[in-house]
């Protein structure tokens, strides 16, 4: 009994420590805007938000050109990633703190890209722009200049990324890997292919066989902050994700699923990979199995 209690406290403490490790508060960021060892980065989806006002000293990354390859469908190349970090004065020891709009959904994706390339010290500002705004903290419009560094990727962690072949293996060889679809229930069931206004679509609707639907927004509260650790554990446990085995998160493209990847890996400490490509790859691929409960099958029209 004592052993169980000790183990429980150890696990709880580790998880609390993990959350402490991965998240920083708006107040901590406010106190550290001038800390030379910290680089605050805004990754927002809505254009113009960073320019209208950002946290003092924060760099603004354009997600579609600086974190993505604009020609080939891939994340930013290693070379361009090194250039991005170099011109923003980031060294291997810099603690990079991400924040952004919409409950930090693309900020988490920025975190994932940096994790992929093996950067050690990464944090996310809990609550993102919403919380900063709600607390009426000051904004700045000055774009900072940084003394350039020579950043080199040392030990990329490509294990954090699942490719289509990996996911196909999971489905066909029935591996002990949990698939989490973080899209809306309508997309998951196949009722719609993508939300209205999305540019990237797929030829077929539905989800990857065996996947469980936990929409990404369920991990955050109204104010943009992440829910408490025990709430999150319960949320994912209800979908059969309890930390055993590996988890693969996916969404429509792979950016939103990084948000859930962040929750599962950095807050809960599970073993998680993000399937970058997600439904825009799977739903357009030839010959892959799909589950579609809503009956919206292709009728040739």
């Amino acid at each position: 009994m004592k052993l169980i209690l000790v183990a429980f406290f150890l696990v709880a403490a580790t998880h609390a420590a993990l959350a402490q490790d991965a998240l920083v508060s708006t107040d901590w960021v406010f106190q550290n805007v001038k800390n030379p060892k910290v680089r605050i980065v805004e990754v927002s989806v809505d254009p113009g938000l960073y320019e209208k006002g950002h946290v003092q000293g924060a760099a603004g990354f354009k997600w579609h050109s600086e974190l993505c390859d604009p020609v080939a469908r891939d994340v930013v190349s290693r070379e361009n990633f090194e250039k991005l970090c170099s011109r923003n004065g980031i060294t291997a020891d810099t603690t990079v703190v991400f924040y952004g709009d919409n409950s930090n959904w693309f900020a988490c994706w920025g975190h994932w890209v940096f994790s992929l390339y093996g950067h050690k010290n990464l944090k996310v500002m809990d609550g993102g722009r919403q919380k900063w705004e709600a607390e009426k903290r000051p904004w700045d419009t000055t774009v900072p200049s940084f003394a350039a560094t020579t950043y080199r990727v040392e030990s990329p962690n490509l294990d954090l990324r699942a490719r289509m072949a990996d996911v196909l293996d999971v489905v066909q060889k029935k591996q002990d890997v949990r698939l989490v679809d973080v899209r809306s229930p309508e997309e998951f069931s196949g009722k719609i292919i993508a939300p209205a206004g999305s540019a990237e679509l797929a030829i077929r609707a539905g989800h990857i066989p065996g996947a469980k639907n936990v929409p990404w927004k369920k991990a955050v509260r109204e104010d943009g902050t992440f829910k408490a650790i025990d709430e999150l554990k319960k949320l994912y446990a209800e979908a059969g994700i309890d930390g055993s085995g590996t988890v693969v998160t996916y969404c429509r493209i792979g950016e939103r699923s990084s948000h859930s990847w962040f929750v599962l890996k950095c807050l809960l400490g599970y073993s998680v990979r993000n399937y970058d490509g997600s439904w825009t790859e799977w739903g357009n691929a030839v010959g892959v199995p799909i589950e579609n409960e809503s009956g919206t099958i292709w009728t040739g029209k």
Partner: protein
Amino acid sequence: MRFGAAAAVAIAAVVAGLVLHAVAGRGRELSFTLIAGFAAGIVFQRSQFCFASAFRDLFHKRERRVLLGLITALAVGSAGYMIVFGAWIPDPALHRPNTAHIAPVGWHLLLGGALFGFGMVVGGGCITGHLFRLGEGSAVAPVGLLGVLGGYVLGLAAWNPIYLNLVSSIRGLWCPERLGYAGSIALQGGVLAAGAALLLHRTPAPAPAAPSPATLPVVARRVFVERWPAWVGGLALGLIATFAYLRTSPLGVTEEIGRLARLAGGGLGIMPDRLQGLDELVGCAAVANPDTVSTNAVFVLALVGGALFAALVAGEFRPRLGTAPGHLRALGGGVLVGFGAMISLGCTVGTLMSGIMAFSLSGWVFLIALALGAWAGTRAIGRPSP
């Protein structure tokens, strides 16, 4: 002949701007500061904005022109600052703007303002007055600036006891913190409007002039040769002040003088080991990096360049030696100006204008003391012989 020289000045400014823009890290800030300084120099020269002559002419001849221009500048700048505050500080009760010149309030401001006001009238120029007259070719102006530097050194040497005894509220008073943005603009707008009304109240109406046609030569003369109406200069100055605050820092002309004074004082061995409180206070006395040339140096030099350019185009560049008594008065007055500017952490631009535009009480206190000192100064120099 003079247009060629003006063109040379303009080309030199463009080249300097390109060179500065290439400086690593600070390039954008430096090149913008050059543009702002050059534009400010043009405005000061074309409008003949000098606080010293403004107060002297007010008390001697009831001439209100420059002061009306100042009120316009303050009104436009206040509105501009308010717009920027709204973008940066959603709730002024919770946070203060980082770089606005919200200076400490205390007896030091009254002393500094009074000495500045007295000295500027006696010496024939406030600091920007000397700077733009330098651009017009006055040999007295650099002597005055030398006096300012000397006074600044003395101010630094005397700072510690002044800080410990006279500076009462380090936090100063930032109006929006107490009254919010709407309340502040209403109050300050009201005061400025009342001041303008008071000044205009007893101005005799000028004889109506026949309106001249707006042809190119007429307009060109009005812009490049004739003295600008005060409100035009004030409007331009208020806009420059707003853009400078938005892009770089509030306007000020004594930061570089202060840096040089610290070096000179250190060299002479009369500097105290530590200047109490100074490095935490915002304004023109806090020096970022004593060893490198400050951004403010770019502003000041560009200001002289802009004034030179405007003077050449207008045909007002007249190298003049001045008289020996004039030089002595400029030097002596300059010392008082420099001392007053140092202990007030800024001058008529940095403390008065940038302070009032930022809704800081310190700006108003300095203005009142300045006016009193200037009045005393005009009594001291007596009326000019008819």
